[in-house]
């Protein structure tokens, strides 16, 4: 993102949270740059929400330190951190009008009435809710409530905004729409945003970078493309999109002999001979072939189709390989793409550069 000598907007240094003997967040190290849209992605219970609570100041650190710019936060009360939070449940104040909800922080900061009016209107214009000033939250739709929550947390111009699964409660159409809105607002304000979600699709669409969390640890940080194309970790590979993990052993030739069979495949990178590895290949990288020809640089594994699932834009296949493992294949439905039936013998073909090797720990 921004230049390497600018201080990060937020820095987490060995951030740890324990509840009794349970470690919810385990020595998290992370730097988030000014203006970055960063997503913490993980299954429920992975510690991503706890991390957010720690940053917001609603939970106390067990160990480590959080820096906002250069300022250590562990001894700063939640209401003095100047970090905005959008709650999953919106947490709008039901007794206050939309205007007063958005003005809430400004009144705590004792802004002048005239300045409050200008700022609130500007924020409501930003989220396209100009006409709703005098309504109560209960008189708004879910999507509108979400926008008020966003305007409210941005009104006091926090340098960092935390969003805790902010669109989890909306229906699918509205979710997509709000994602676009978040992006637009992020671009126009360049506020640093930290977004927590368990939805990998949201994460991929929104983020400059994604941090994948599992069991309290940060497993991998990178851009959406890096994480998807080169997961480097079985958990990341499985959590981000569908994938095939094929166990095997590296041969002296550098090729990988798949377990339970005699087939060898090549991946984009090399591993030391003798190592136990997983070969990772995404379902959409695989082509199904009924011919016998072998193309140079392509891998080829034989199998039998067990299941065909039509999902609209694509058809998904489950193929049992000769080695006995079940592989997923996804093919876009174009007029020219052939469809196959259950029971058919096929070859699964993918280019070596489309698969990676993960070493088995």
């Amino acid at each position, binding site marked *: 993102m921004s230049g390497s000598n600018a201080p990060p907007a937020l820095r987490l240094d060995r951030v740890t949270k324990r509840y009794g003997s349970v470690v919810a967040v385990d020595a998290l190290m992370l730097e988030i740059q000014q203006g970055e849209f960063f997503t913490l992605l993980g299954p429920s219970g992975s510690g991503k929400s706890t991390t957010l609570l720690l940053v917001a100041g609603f939970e106390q650190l067990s160990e480590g330190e959080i820096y906002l710019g250069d300022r250590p936060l562990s001894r700063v009360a939640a*209401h003095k951190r100047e970090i905005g939070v959008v709650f999953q449940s919106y947490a709008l104040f*039901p007794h206050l*009008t939309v205007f007063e909800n958005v003005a*809430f922080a400004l009144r705590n900061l004792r802004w002048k009435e005239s300045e409050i009016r200008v700022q609130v209107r500007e924020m409501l214009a930003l989220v396209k809710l100009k006409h709703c000033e005098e309504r109560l939250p209960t008189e708004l739709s879910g999507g509108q409530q979400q926008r008020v929550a966003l305007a*409210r947390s941005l009104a006091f111009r926090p340098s960092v905004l935390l969003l805790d699964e902010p669109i989890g409660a909306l229906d699918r159409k509205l979710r997509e729409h709000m994602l676009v809105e978040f992006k637009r607002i992020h671009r126009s304000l360049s506020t640093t945003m930290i977004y927590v979600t368990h939805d990998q699709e949201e994460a991929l669409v929104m983020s400059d970078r994604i941090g994948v969390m599992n069991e309290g640890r940060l497993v991998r940080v990178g851009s959406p493309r890096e994480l998807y194309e080169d997961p480097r970790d079985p958990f990341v590979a499985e959590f981000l999109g569908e994938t095939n993990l094929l166990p095997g052993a590296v041969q002296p030739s550098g090729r990988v002999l798949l377990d339970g069979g005699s087939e060898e495949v090549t991946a984009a990178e090399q591993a030391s001979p003798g190592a136990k590895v997983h070969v990772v290949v995404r379902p959409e990288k695989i082509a199904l072939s009924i011919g016998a020809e072998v193309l140079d640089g392509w891998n080829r594994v034989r199998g039998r189709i067990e299941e065909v699932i039509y999902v609209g834009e694509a058809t998904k296949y489950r193929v049992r390989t000769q080695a006995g493992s079940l592989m997923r294949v996804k093919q876009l439905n174009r007029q020219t793409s052939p469809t196959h039936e259950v029971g058919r013998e096929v070859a699964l073909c993918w280019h070596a550069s489309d698969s990676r090797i993960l070493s088995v720990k």
Partner: protein
Amino acid sequence: MPTRLRGTPLAPLLAAAPAVIFLTVIFGLPVLRVLALSLFDPGFTLEHYQRLIDVPIYRAVMLNTVEIAAVVALICVLLAYPTAYMLATIRPRLAQILVLAVMVPFFTSALVRNYAWIFLLGSHGVVNSTLLSLGLISEPLPLIFNRAGVLIGMTNVLMPYTILVLLSVMRGIRHDLMPAAQSLMARPFTAFRRVYLPLSLPGVGASFLLVFVLGLAFFITPAMLGGPRDVMIANIIGNVTTALNWGFAAALATVLLVVSLFVIALTQILFGGIGLLAGESGTGLRAVRVRRSREGAVLSLLDRLLDPLWPLGFHVIGGASLLFLVIPVVIMVPLSFSSAAFFVFPPPGWSLQWYVKYLTGAPWLDATWHSLEIGVLTTILALAAAVPASIAISRLPSRIGMTIYLWILAPLIMPSIIIAVAVFYVLGQLNLNYTVLGVALGHMILAMPMATVVLTAALRNFDRNVERAATSLGAGPLRTIWRVTLPTLATAMFTAGLFAFLQSFDELLIALFVSGINAGTLPKKMWESLQELDPTIAAVSTLLVTFSIAILGASFLLQRVGKRRTARTGELGAFALEPGAAEEVR
């Protein structure tokens, strides 16, 4: 054949009939008849109302009544708010324990607690003895048989209601609002002032008016703890009725009832909170709406001053209030084992003599036996009417069902002195005064609504599809009710029965009028012992408190077990036993 009945609302109407007819005959018509006597005794006359206005003492009593009820309601709210806030915001585990300090007094009879205040505050009482022996005072302080005594006693009886109403309102406030306010740069106290307080304000108003109405009708406490200047309207009604001056008693009762109904209507209009009486959660309260909240310099100063004390100040008040509620319940225990022949504190030695005296004293044992008999009879009759009525309410079209439900609940908001007078009147007509059956019929007026509240709440959570499943498996309607509905209601029925029994067992006013000697109950015997105050009272009180705790504990355990098996019960007050699961979300 029943299948045909099923399609029409006739079957549920028949099921509700016993409860409705009973209440109409034993409660509704007699109350109307008695109230009518204020205008027709003997012929049409306004003389009784004239007397109310003309005689200064009656005017004074009415003003007294309003003043005492208002002051008590104010004290209750001021103390209960911090207490409820504490209970609603501390760790759920701790809250669950502390809430017992509200529930146990709530289920202990006012009679027992008032006796405790006599022992505590009397001139030889615990407080004065302690202060004297510490040399802080040279003469006993007049803490009782005056206004202070009445206020202390009534606050003690009524504060649990305030706490429970406020608690249910506060549990309806979402847990993410306070963190949200803090993330918007509000100090913790400011967050409370700007968010929590306005959201809980309807509960404050509703609980104030509720306690005010209940306070207006107080009889036992002013009689036991007050002086000659603290007589309240119910006491006068009692005296006048005993003198069989029906017309004047009716005029007083009418005034009391009109004022009560007016305040209840006001509560409903302002806050929409009648559901609170039935132990429903506070979400039905009308929301406050703030258009513009200007934050002036005064508020800013207030925030600065109070924030350092927050929330410690509330916790101190809350802790003290809980102590205030519990002390009269537990103080009887050491006193009951005293070896002294009269009341002294601290007891010079220990003995079981007062328990022996209770267990060997024929009057005490007779009274206990009557109470048990009446309690069991009341419970059986109340359940017999309430179970079919509740099932009927749950399946009748909601307007008819609601009307029946409100009619059954009506006695709960009726001042009990008026019920007592009406029961005394109707039992006289039926020649049932001074009989066990008569007292049980009287107690049923209050016990049946209690049971109906518990059962209706349980039925609201009952999944009708379970019955539909039974029907689809070939069970007829009666068989379905017998084999599916009633078994799932078992827990709630047991709880309802316990509450009905306790209601009867602790009841004093009706018993005072209609039980006489042949059916004199334990509370009546205790009441009559006021003149010959000795530690036997403490022994009986200790037994009664233990009994209440046992019943409360049983229903609580049952609820726990029941929750795993069947639908929930939401009986009056018991909703406070479960600090909301939402607490976990934080």
